[in-house]
């Protein structure tokens, strides 16, 4: 049978292979794209807009600011964070404000604080929520009008938005 009808067999094979590819091709995008709810995407436009709102479009240089966060956090619901800014904190030269932004949280803003020479030490410590593994950035505004920043990567095992529903 085999040798008597090689053409039909190849045709059937081809047809089957073609059908398989079709099915595979149709199924593939569905497999690759998880449901929208489970996927957290960075929103660079919102982040850039939030930073522009805080800085007024001024140039942000890297340095002077030190952002300390644990590199790995099991739970995104409460991640400790310490920001220190290298400044003498005198009447002539002090830190006016510190802003913190995230790239993958539903909103880019985290906290904005205003301080002055009376702070004595430019340090801010708080606990934040993180929806996913991402980069956090801190921007400090100095009394001379310059902006300085630092960023840190945090790996989150369980994001803040995936907790149990009440």
């Amino acid at each position, binding site marked *: 049978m085999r040798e008597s009808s090689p053409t039909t067999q190849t045709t059937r094979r081809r047809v089957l292979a073609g059908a398989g590819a079709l099915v595979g091709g149709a199924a593939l995008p569905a497999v690759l794209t998880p449901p929208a709810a489970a996927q957290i995407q960075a929103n660079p436009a919102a982040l850039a807009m939030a930073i522009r709102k805080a800085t007024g479009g001024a140039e942000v240089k890297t340095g002077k600011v030190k952002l300390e966060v644990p590199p790995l956090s099991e739970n995104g619901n409460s991640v400790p964070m310490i920001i220190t800014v290298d400044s003498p904190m005198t009447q002539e030269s002090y830190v006016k404000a510190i802003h913190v932004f995230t790239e993958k949280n539903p*909103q880019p803003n985290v*906290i904005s604080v205003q301080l002055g020479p*009376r*702070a004595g030490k430019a340090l801010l410590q708080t606990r934040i929520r993180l929806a996913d593994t991402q980069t956090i950035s801190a921007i400090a505004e100095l009394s001379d009008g310059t902006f300085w920043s630092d960023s840190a990567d945090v790996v989150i095992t369980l994001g803040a938005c995936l907790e149990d529903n009440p």
Partner: protein
Amino acid sequence: MARALINVPAKAKRGEVIAIKTLVSHVMESGFRHTNLGAVIPRDIIDTFVCTYNGEEIFRAQLAPAIAANPFIAFHTVATDSGKLEFKWTGDNGFTATEIATITVE
């Protein structure tokens, strides 16, 4: 009235930089979570924190939903005079909490 914890040294030398730690009990509901039925849980957060030292504002913070529940904020100030440090949190649904700490400066 929400419970608040404040840590301010009772005594300090004039000109000394002192650490202030604050913690207030609040759910900080982000407004991005849903119930099992799919309804959005409305936002309920503290959005502003202000600290005044003898009436002069020394620290102010705008909080976003990305601040963890029971917001903890720590900062520093220079001990200038004996007196009162007043802490005030305000937020959604008319939330306010006030706490006062006294400091003796030598």
